């Protein structure tokens, strides 16, 4: 476990309906720092197929008071495990179309292994702990997406 002196200014979390601009986020991760040579980003998009059905639209419900705190807490946990520079997490809510951006995670570090691990850790915990729920619209009507056991397993694997 690594206890890092990462300042709150360097952990930025947003929960918003608006779309985000990956370019702008990448520039924030890169600017005003010369120490971190590694930047890893993850973007999640609305896929056209899920559980064998063609998806037309997605509606993301969330628990506003908890969503922000939950993402912030996951980012902080990452800083306790790895030496990181900056962390950016964005999660959208509301109505989303096919191909739309849902989630952004960006991490900087001196070491690429730490940046990769931290970004994946944040995504894995977000998947099982952040209070968001997807409702898909398909030709057969709308349905709530089922949580996946594989996501639970991934989160559990970090706790070994």
């Amino acid at each position: 476990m690594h206890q890092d002196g990462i300042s709150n200014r360097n952990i930025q979390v947003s929960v918003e309906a608006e779309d985000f601009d990956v370019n702008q986020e990448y520039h924030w991760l890169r600017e005003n720092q010369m120490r971190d040579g590694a930047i890893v980003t993850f973007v999640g998009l609305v896929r056209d197929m899920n559980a064998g059905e063609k998806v037309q639209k997605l509606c993301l419900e969330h628990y506003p008071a908890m969503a922000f705190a939950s993402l912030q807490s996951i980012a902080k946990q990452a800083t306790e495990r790895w030496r990181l520079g900056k962390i950016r997490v964005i999660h959208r809510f509301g109505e989303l179309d096919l191909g739309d951006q849902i989630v952004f995670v960006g991490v900087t570090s001196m070491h690429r292994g730490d940046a990769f691990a931290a970004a994946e850790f944040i995504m894995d915990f977000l998947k099982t702990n952040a209070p968001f729920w997807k409702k898909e619209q398909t030709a057969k009507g709308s349905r709530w997406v089922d949580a996946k056991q594989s996501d639970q397993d991934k989160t559990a694997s970090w706790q070994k």
Partner: protein
Amino acid sequence: MIKILFFAQLRERLGVAELTQDTLPDTIGALRNELSQQSGLWAELLQKERCLAALNQEIVADNAKLNSGDEVAFFPPVTGG
């Protein structure tokens, strides 16, 4: 007094997003049991296996103690990201 929130399938199928109650069960588990007595539907949807609980915006186990003014939320396993 405690505030109780419901999300996603729970909110839709129970037809309620938020309620407040004056009685104060000891724990999250006791509250879960109390609510489950309202009907078969409530009992089914609030089953521990398929319904997470958060206390003051943090996921907790059923033995978490309740205090007046707490915000409790019940919801299905999350599916964001």
